[in-house]
């Protein structure tokens, strides 16, 4: 068998191992599939800034790590954004290593971070709801990206361009207002092309050596979209009391938006697995009643929409999800791969056994500060807890953290190899 055929076989065998667990079929051994991205780069001595600004270094390190760690699924490299693209777009909502603008700059070894802000003010919700597209174009985008601030110069609603007279007058007028914007977008387009080309080559390289990635496309839950990118944490939490109906209306708008986005992505890519990082539904962030009222209905419909399209949702349940397990029991069995951060394993087994697998949860504190023996013990206990083949192993939260001791990651992998065969 040629090397190429051998790797292709391995590629499919690895996907099958993971997806068997998701479908609640016992695989040959416990799979390891990680949500991590930057670890694949930093553990080869390339820092986070280099990962974002030097695609060749990033690709080389990522590919080397894939072969070295030999996981069933690597994290998706798509979440390593292009630094030059971010600089050109000047996205004020993020801080990242190496940012040209000092106010956005983080130390070289830090991963990209979102800055919680209120982009849509509480008294603007009605205006947004009246015309979400126009508000997004003329108000939200300029607030989120100073490179696109010229869009706020558009003097009148986009709807007014729906007749030939206004097309003749307003569009040419706008081209004068938006000259700088065109130049910036042209540069950004070039950077995007360069970044996408690097990502596509990397994914092809990984595939050629037999390694799949967890997912290729990520989306937000409707509530988190509103909380993270429009109203901010504080605004959203206050909305639950001060303007609950408007908050619900916003979440409804973004349920429709997420659905449109998925359907468009289905047309563009071959989607099989979709990542959904979940931020605000965990214990402590809201009551069960609030979760049932503001968060779960739209999230459940999102899961079901993906399932209907034969796509496996891969939610990252950030924070403690124990109180929400009862909601997950409403989902069809064997269709979702939920990645846990903190959850009561016994309750997971009691409530979700036969419905959904367990994906996690080697603690980051252990991978960073623990010993290899402690890691081995933890992984063995995890495997013992799920003897029926419904376990995928990874770090907790977002997978293997960049600060992990390499020997601890190797201990996790070796223990699964030695102890995880069924």
């Amino acid at each position, binding site marked *: 068998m040629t090397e190429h055929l051998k790797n292709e076989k391995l590629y499919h065998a690895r996907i099958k191992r993971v997806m068997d667990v998701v479908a609640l079929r016992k695989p040959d051994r416990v799979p390891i599939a990680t949500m991590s991205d930057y670890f694949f780069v930093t553990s080869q001595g390339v820092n986070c800034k280099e990962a974002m600004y030097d695609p060749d270094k990033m690709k080389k390190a990522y590919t080397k790590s894939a072969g070295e760690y030999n996981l069933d699924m690597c994290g998706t490299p798509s979440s390593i954004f292009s630094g030059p693209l971010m600089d050109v777009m000047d996205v004020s909502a993020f801080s990242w290593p190496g940012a040209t603008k000092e106010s956005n700059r983080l130390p070289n070894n830090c991963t990209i*971070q979102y800055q*919680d802000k209120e982009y849509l003010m509480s008294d603007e919700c009605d205006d947004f709801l009246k015309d979400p597209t126009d508000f997004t174009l003329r108000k939200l985008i300029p607030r989120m990206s100073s490179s696109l601030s010229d869009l706020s110069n558009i003097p009148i609603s986009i709807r007014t361009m729906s007749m030939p007279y206004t097309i003749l007058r307003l569009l040419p007028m706008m081209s004068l207002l938006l000259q700088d914007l065109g130049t910036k977008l042209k540069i950004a387009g070039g950077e995007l092309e360069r970044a996408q080309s690097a990502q596509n080559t990397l994914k092809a390289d990984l595939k050629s050596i037999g390694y799949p990635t967890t997912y290729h496309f990520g989306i937000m839950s409707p509530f988190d979209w509103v909380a993270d990118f429009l109203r901010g944490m504080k605004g959203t939490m*206050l909305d639950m009391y001060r303007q609950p109906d408007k908050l619900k209306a916003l979440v409804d708008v973004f349920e429709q938006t997420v659905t449109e986005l998925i359907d468009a992505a289905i047309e563009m890519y071959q989607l099989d697995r979709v990542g959904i990082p979940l931020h605000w539904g965990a214990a402590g962030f809201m009551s069960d009643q609030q979760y049932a009222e503001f968060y779960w209905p739209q999230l459940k419909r999102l899961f079901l929409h993906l399932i209907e399209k034969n796509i496996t949702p891969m939610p990252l349940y950030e924070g403690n999800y124990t109180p929400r397990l009862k909601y997950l029991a409403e989902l069809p069995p064997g269709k979702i791969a939920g990645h846990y951060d903190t959850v009561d394993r016994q309750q997971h087994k009691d409530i979700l056994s036969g419905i959904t697998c367990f994906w996690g949860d080697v603690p980051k504190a252990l991978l960073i500060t623990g010993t290899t023996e402690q890691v081995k013990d933890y992984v063995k206990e995890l495997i013992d807890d799920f003897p029926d083949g419904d376990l995928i192993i990874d770090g907790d939260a977002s997978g293997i953290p*960049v600060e992990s001791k390499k020997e601890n990651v190797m201990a996790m992998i070796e223990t699964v190899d030695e102890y995880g065969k069924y």
Partner: protein
Amino acid sequence: MKDLMNAVIQMDEQSAIKQTEKLLADGKSAMEILDTYREALSQIGTLFERGECFLPELILSGEMLKTASEKLKPFIQKSVDAEKRGRVVVGTVQGDVHDIGKDIVVLLLDASGYEVMDVGVDVSAETFTTAVQEFMPQVLGLSGLLSSAYGQMKGTIELLNRKNLRSDLKIMIGGGQMSDSIRIYTGADAFGNNAVAAVRLCDDWIEEGQII
């Protein structure tokens, strides 16, 4: 005062404002009214710890206190500052720009009668050290959401040790990912996973006479 307390605990913002205005008109002292708010927030904190109250309630009650403080400020004598329970420096460590948890800690500590210096986010070990030297707090709170925070917290505490600034200083680390093993790793005195725990730690240290 009971009606005001109930209004705050039941998250009835409008009623709390009305009660505050009524109590002021009835000649109640502004300080007494503010203390009622603080007591209500303390009870909400307890409910939060018990899992009977959540982030929206913490935030809203904090906002209610803020509104009341503004309204009552003209009626409160300046000497009140002298009655602060203690001084606390709080900030998010270098490389981490998350401010949500830190901001709630600042709000709750302030509401609980502490004088708080908020040094912001992405704060270097050197800046924390300068803040400790200048503000002379009894407690330093290091906040962080990311796993990169562990090393930064450790480095900050090591710098404070090297500069002999630990003898009268308690250090607490906070964030959803903190644990006792991380407390040991960083060299902190205590850890907390939420904002209410930070207030509880400061209160306990004061009650136990560990900080003066």
